[in-house]
């Protein structure tokens, strides 16, 4: 869907995006991670055609990115707002119109979405009369009213209350199922782990890690396994071989054990099977959070 090659952008303050190359596959939910000031928003602004890169190319479905492609894009920036004096209805129609949706279709869609979110009776209210939660819903609807093929969400859950955040999450997943490619920019790792198939970590203007989320976690794999038991019966072998042990809602006790090869793994399985209260066995992949912290701190 999106191919970014050797993208560079600098301001008076210095280089903000340096030789960025990325590929966002069609139909994926792509997470763009990075600490504050890493250059995420600059990259997103270039993708949304708000600013142009100094050099490098962005391809949209194989074509060099142009303003005509913005009709198929939805963009919700981190800092957001709408026209205070405009009604919810007019606002939705205006955003649909600038994205090239015909009036009749825009009306139908606006009605559908307002009904869907249970806010149809608010359609004639001005934005300044709405509660913050309500305004957040309208903001999101303005972003997706034209049913974009590519949706850019910059810190989508910041400022949203938990109920609305869940609602947005649900809608985003629904749109993704229908084929919309989604780019998430966030530093909330729980969302990334939950939603993203692919991710890139950007730090000091450079992409430092990029790929499928499981591959990235595997790349930082420390060859450890977790074995869990459901009771406090003695697990002597595990107690002597483990490198770490903890409790968890999934099991009464979980042991973390180092396992360098297949042979050691088989021994581990055999030892676990010897206990009747054995309930859990898994590879101990680092969480995205751990990957992120480690990657950023290494540089």
């Amino acid at each position, binding site marked *: 869907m999106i191919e970014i090659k050797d993208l560079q952008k600098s301001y008076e303050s210095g280089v903000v995006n340096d030789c960025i190359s990325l590929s966002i596959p069609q139909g994926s939910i792509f997470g763009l991670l990075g600490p504050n000031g890493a250059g995420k928003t600059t990259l997103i602004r270039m993708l949304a055609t708000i600013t142009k890169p100094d050099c490098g190319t962005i391809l949209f479905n194989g074509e060099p990115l142009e303003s005509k492609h913005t009709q198929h894009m939805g963009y*919700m*920036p981190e800092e*957001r707002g709408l026209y205070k004096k405009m009604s919810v209805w007019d606002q939705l129609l205006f955003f649909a*119109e*600038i*994205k090239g949706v015909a009036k009749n279709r825009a009306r139908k869609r606006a009605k559908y979405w307002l009904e869907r979110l249970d806010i149809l009776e608010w359609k004639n209210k001005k934005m300044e009369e709405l509660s913050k939660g309500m305004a957040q819903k309208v903001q999101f609807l303005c972003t997706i009213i034209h049913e974009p093929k590519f949706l850019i969400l910059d810190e989508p859950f910041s400022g949203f209350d938990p109920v609305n955040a869940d609602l947005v999450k649900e809608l985003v997943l629904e749109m993704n199922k229908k084929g919309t490619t989604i780019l998430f920019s966030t530093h909330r790792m729980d969302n990334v782990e939950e939603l993203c198939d692919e991710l890139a970590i950007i730090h000091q203007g450079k992409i430092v890690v990029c790929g499928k989320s499981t591959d990235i976690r595997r790349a930082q794999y420390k060859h450890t396994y977790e074995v869990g038991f459901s009771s406090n019966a003695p697990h002597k072998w595990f107690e002597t071989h483990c490198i770490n042990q903890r409790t968890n809602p999934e099991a009464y006790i979980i042991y973390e054990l180092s396992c360098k090869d297949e042979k050691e793994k088989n021994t581990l399985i055999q030892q676990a099977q010897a206990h009747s209260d054995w309930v859990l066995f898994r590879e101990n992949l680092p969480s995205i959070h751990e990957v992120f912290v480690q990657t950023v701190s290494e540089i």
Partner: protein
Amino acid sequence: MKNIRIIFKREYLSRIKNKSFILLTLITPLIFVAFYAAVAFIAVQSGKSDEYTQVNYLDEHNILSEAVNKDTLSNFIFHKVDHPTEMKELLDNEYLALLHIKDKDRLSIDSLEFISSQTPSITKISSLQSYLTDDIFTQSLGELNITNKQLDELKPRVKFKTLEAKLDGDLKSSNSGLKSGIGMFMAFIIYIFIFIYGSMVMRSTIEEKTNRIVEVIVSSVKPFDLMLGKILGVAAVGLTQFIAWIVLGTGLITVISLVLGLSAGDSSFYQEIAAGGENTAIANDTVSSLIQSVESLPFAKIITVFLLFFVGGYLLYSSLFAAIGSAVNQDSDTQQFMFPVSLPLVFGFIIAQSAVFQDPNGAIAKVFSYIPFTSPVVMSARVAFGISWLEIFTSFFILIATFLFMVWLSARIYRVGILMYGKKPKWKDFAKWIIRKN
């Protein structure tokens, strides 16, 4: 182009649907009419002779005639005080005004004492002075056996009838006062409206920036289209308001005239006003000359110039105001940029005043009616005095060319400014943004 239309439509509709806009559009003509009615009412009331001022006077040498005591036409009631002691009593008690005439020689009378409990108005003092001058003058004439009527007949009346020679050899009546009035009125209206609607564009830009809507919009609409759509939208709002005011104002005046039983075209009404008890023949002459002067005004030119230069001037200044609005983060930051940008307009207005009153076709007036930053105001002030179409269109062409250049320049500031937050901009930032690539 499509995006400009969409932005234009939003800007226009959201403004004219606004309650405060509707209210202002409806109320302004009412306020104007009420204002003029109040002025007229006050003028009529103050002109009425039912407010008399009692003047008690002590005339030691009988300089004033006896007639003043019987006069009922003036706004003064004179009461002669015969003795200085009576004067003293009046000073001790309540009184309205005391006049002490001490001088013996009435021809050299120049220092009467006027004593009152409250400071009298200038008009009251001057009307009393001229009343007394007339009285003494009439007495002097009487001594020479000359009546007022004889004197009037002796006095020659020199009054120009100003005529303007047209190219076709036709001579038309012209009135410099009327033209100056029209010129100043148009210059003032253009000056005010450029400010009102220009700041509307600026505030709208600031609103979009502070509400952070702009980032979403510029992801679909080019900053240039956004700016131009906004400028044109507000221009349409201005023209709508203007037309509404003209229609409402005309309607209101017609209704008032009908209610008062007057027809706007009824010249006898004006004649009555002009006559005011004076010589009706002279008044008739004045009115017909005035009507002729109005008829001889180049209305087509005046209206064309007004519309062209109002729109042109607004476009030029509003593009600058939009650039300022895009650069700042809040309303209060605009002051330092607004002042130098609007200075040429203020200067233009000063030039318009001197041009109209002193030499509407002089070199200064001509030069400034070609400079695009002053031409909207100066040109509209001059148009009633007769300007050639060539001059009008040359100046308008320069104005539009400058607008196109300024809108390009402003758009370069705008595209960067709208996405800049936090830091308060400086002039050098504007220069940097203009030369910055994409």
